[in-house]
């Protein structure tokens, strides 16, 4: 028996338990707190599965940003006069159990997996320009997927901004003016920016990269926003639009630079893969940060207006 199997069993049981508690608890706030715990347990699961990039991204994005977003939403949505319902779905439960049985049977009885692309990847790593495999796959070998992802993010950002209320001071934040918080964000803001730049740079040879750096920058922005600091670059205008599309445009330029030299699309010129990847990653993380941050802040007005009508 594998020595760490007991720990893995505990982590899996805790994952299932926290997910059930998140989805089925009576109080929405409690459910969201359990969801944050679920995100952190997923980060531990990624560490156990030897994927530190995923652990970083899951902790920053799923536990941190999604948790803050959902807590914000629960604070506005919860109406104590309308109690949460609790139903016992027999039909859906039965069908789900059948699906679970089929999935478990498929996972346990799988045929011999072929080694996948690991051998081909190891052979091609020196031409990729970076020394970390996941970054190489993301930004060189499968850069088309990352390009599609950044275009999805840009589209989401524009839809989110389109839903934003027109008044620029519409977000009536309850100002938390607390000297301890001010000192904390005065220290923590620069530290978070520094750590995100480090993550971006370290992504070429260690776990890290553009997504984690962008998520950390977005988290820094969310912290500032929730502390009542107004972020002037989030007002709709030319600066915001430039930041949002810069990742997409730079990636597109790098992708079409191939056909100008006679190589296929999404192929970088030989020898320039390293600098190209770093330039793309810089703009990508900036774009991701601004996108995630503006999706967080583009919300309807707070509940103060809700109590007066609607």
């Amino acid at each position, binding site marked *: 028996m594998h020595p760490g199997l007991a720990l893995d069993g505990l982590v899996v049981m805790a994952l299932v338990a926290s997910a059930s508690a998140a989805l089925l608890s009576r109080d929405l706030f409690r459910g969201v707190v359990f969801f944050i715990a679920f995100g952190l347990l997923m980060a531990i699961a990624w560490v156990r599965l030897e994927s530190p990039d995923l652990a970083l991204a899951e902790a920053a994005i799923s536990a941190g940003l999604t948790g803050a977003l959902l807590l914000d939403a629960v604070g506005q949505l919860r109406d104590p006069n309308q109690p949460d319902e609790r139903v016992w779905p027999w039909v859906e439960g039965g069908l789900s159990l059948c699906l679970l049985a089929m999935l478990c049977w498929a996972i346990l009885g799988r045929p011999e*997996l072929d080694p996948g692309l690991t051998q081909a990847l190891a052979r091609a790593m020196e031409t990729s320009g970076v020394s970390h495999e996941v970054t190489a796959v993301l930004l060189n070998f499968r850069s088309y997927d990352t390009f599609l992802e950044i275009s999805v993010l840009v589209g989401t950002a524009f839809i989110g901004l389109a839903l934003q209320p027109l008044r620029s001071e519409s977000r009536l934040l309850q100002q938390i003016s607390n000297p301890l918080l001010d000192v904390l964000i005065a220290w923590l803001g620069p530290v978070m920016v520094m750590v995100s730049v480090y993550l971006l740079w370290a992504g070429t040879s260690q776990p890290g990269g553009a997504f984690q750096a962008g998520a950390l920058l977005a988290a820094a922005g969310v912290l500032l926003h929730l502390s009542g600091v107004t972020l002037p670059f989030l007002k709709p205008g030319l600066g915001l639009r430039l930041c949002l599309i810069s990742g997409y445009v730079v990636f597109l330029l790098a992708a079409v630079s191939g056909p100008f030299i006679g190589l296929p699309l999404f192929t970088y010129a030989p020898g320039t893969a390293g600098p190209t990847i770093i330039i793309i990653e810089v703009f990508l993380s900036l774009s991701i940060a601004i996108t995630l941050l503006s999706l967080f802040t583009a919300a309807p007005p707070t509940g103060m207006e809700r109590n007066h009508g609607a």
Partner: protein
Amino acid sequence: MAPETLYALGGAFLFVIGLCVMVAIPHLLRKILAFNVMAGGIFLILVGLREAGEFPDPVPQALVLTGIVVAFASTALAVLLLRRWFHVSGRATLEPEHAYAHHYRYGPGDKKPEPERDADSGSDA
């Protein structure tokens, strides 16, 4: 059993729990939570299906990294739409009022929720 297979089975559990809740419970925020749980389950299955003890395959890791970011963007947009809907209509479900009251049933052993006076409802800081 290899630890990776254990995580893949756990991912299957998470997917099924999320799917069941997403289909059955009409409250929109719970559906969004269920969507995230389903996504987590699928990611675990993607990375967990490999031979025991082998070098971790970077290609599924890259795909799951992309998936995590896109899942957050979708969740953020969904929450934005939900808050817009709540602001406009005052409800957090898509069902009409009379159908929503029909779902309002308790299972065995539940007591009616009373307004909590103490520690746990502290989200409106």
